[in-house]
């Protein structure tokens, strides 16, 4: 099935309580698949087409505030619209899952694949100091698996998570193993797991209030310190990545999402020609695997990042490996490079290989 369809199936099987979305190419299949599967008749999951991405993300905020497992999906221009709500969700310390199946920009741009929302996803995106947990799937299987991972991390840290996919992974068809159906949490389980939820006082003595507002500067700074402490914890515990041919590599490629698969092909071709290239694929773009890149940087002559943008992740790689030559190769406008182009770029930046 398609990556977008996998997201829908995985959401139902995880026991998600609600999905709120608005159609936009190239991710409309998420909402379409959910509408076709009618999970409200089986698991009781709410599926709603909102009037806008702004409304959809605020529905996610409202649902998450009541302790429910809720999500939305969109593509780049729509995710820009969602930034207000994402900032509120982060500031209110609520769990939620946001899927961005990236297309080329800026502006209305193109409906073809892109990775140009890297900065927006990993540096905050909306206003204020906050971070999302950002997962970058490279396969349809990872699109499936990261729904559960995203929700698990979001609830563990009470922080929104994002699946940052590119249009290739969203539209690509591959075989997947779907997880078994989990039941949705009961009211009692929800109240036990989320004692903070504003779901009606029930047996509670005191009311729960979900708000991001704090006009007392000292207390607002305290809130900010608490957010930062959470981010530190996430950085310590949740870095995920995969390495390929990295042990004996003289050159390292860093790439994420579908591009990493193209790079892997390029690496195999390079190795056939006797060039020892390896790769690190960040699975979490935030927290970023900076320690691992720094470690690998010690034993390579140089690093090339390959991205579907003008050079965004390359900045984080340079921060991780300040004394190693780090170059960027990217295609934009919805164009995806072929392995030959990646190899060519490697040779251009490292003339000794030519």
């Amino acid at each position: 099935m398609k990556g977008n369809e996998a997201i829908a199936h995985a959401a139902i099987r995880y026991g998600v309580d609600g999905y709120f979305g608005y159609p936009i190419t190239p991710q409309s299949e998420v909402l379409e698949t959910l509408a076709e599967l009618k999970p409200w008749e089986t698991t009781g999951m709410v599926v709603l087409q909102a009037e806008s991405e702004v409304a959809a993300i605020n529905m996610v905020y409202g649902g998450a505030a009541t302790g429910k497992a809720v999500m939305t999906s969109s593509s780049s221009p729509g995710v820009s619209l969602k930034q207000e709500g994402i900032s509120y969700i982060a500031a209110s310390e609520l769990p939620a899952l946001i899927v961005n199946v990236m297309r080329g920009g800026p502006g209305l741009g193109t409906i073809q694949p892109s990775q140009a929302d890297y900065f927006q996803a990993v540096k905050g995106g909306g206003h204020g100091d906050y971070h999302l947990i950002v997962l970058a799937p490279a396969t349809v299987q990872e699109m499936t698996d990261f729904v559960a991972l995203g929700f698990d991390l979001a609830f563990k840290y009470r922080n929104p998570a994002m699946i940052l996919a590119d249009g290739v992974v969203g539209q690509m068809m591959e075989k997947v193993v779907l997880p078994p159906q989990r039941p949705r949490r009961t009211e009692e389980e929800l109240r036990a797991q989320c004692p903070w939820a504003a779901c009606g006082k029930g047996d509670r003595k005191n009311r729960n209030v979900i708000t991001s507002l704090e006009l007392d500067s000292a207390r607002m700074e305290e809130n900010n310190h608490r957010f930062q402490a959470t981010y530190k914890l996430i950085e310590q515990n949740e870095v995920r990545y995969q390495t390929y041919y990295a042990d004996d590599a003289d050159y390292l490629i860093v790439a994420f999402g579908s591009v990493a698969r193209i790079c892997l092909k390029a690496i195999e071709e390079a190795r056939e020609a006797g060039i020892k290239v390896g790769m690190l694929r960040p699975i979490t773009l935030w927290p970023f695997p900076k320690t691992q890149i720094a470690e690998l940087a010690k034993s390579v002559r140089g690093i090339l990042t390959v991205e579907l943008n003008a050079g965004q992740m390359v900045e984080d790689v340079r921060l991780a490996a300040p004394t190693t030559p780090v170059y960027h190769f990217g295609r934009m406008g919805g164009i995806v490079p072929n392995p030959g182009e990646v190899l060519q770029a490697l040779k251009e930046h490292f003339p000794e290989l030519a």
Partner: protein
Amino acid sequence: MTTEEIIQPQNKVYSRPRLLDERDTHYCPGCSHGVVHKIIAELLDEMGLENKTVGVAPVGCAVFAYNYIDVDWVEAAHGRAPAVATAASRLNPQNLVFTYQGDGDLAAIGTAETIHAANRGENIAMIFINNGIYGMTGGQMAPTTLLGMKTATTPYGRTAELNGYPLPISNILATLDGTCYVTRQAVHTPAAVRKTKAAIKKAFENALAKRGTSVVEVVSTCNSGWKLSPAKSNEWMVEHMFEKYPLGDLKTPSEEPKN
């Protein structure tokens, strides 16, 4: 009869609603918010809804509503309360979910969320405080500001040419199939307070009975923003606001049952 004899439990005719916190509010003296808060707190207690209610607070003067009424609250982004309430209600159908919004929140920045939540017939109650001005930010023009009315951003008075016309949003909402009850009330006299209380009660009942969206507009005063005394504000409201925003039901459940 001595004072001590009079001050007896059986003689008590009025008290602070149990669900209204014992604390000073941040509202200006004479502001309508206090009265509407009191009505809501009374109703939630009388209707036995304390433990199954989620209020959605707006951005505006009522942003701190959650500090006064003792039920669970979610504080929404500016204008997004109906979207927040949509999910809170659909995911928790056993609860009463209501929004509490001002004119800027409900009829300017949140117009799309308001109209679409009402058009979907979300089973929520929207309490809409219309005082024709932005109170929290210091008295700027609202979508419901009357023509000729002076505000911080219309210092020479609102003109149709520059600012367009006052928006009768409740009349628009009454035309939608998703609303079951739309009414316009006020809280400037004891009789009006009683009527508003009856209207909000009806709105809460509709939400619980899944009849669709109810809207209770409360035409209100903002004496600070209007730069009038509380008493003068009430007079000005009766003389000017009621002409553009006449009180009464715009739609009742019996007239147009929800499909």
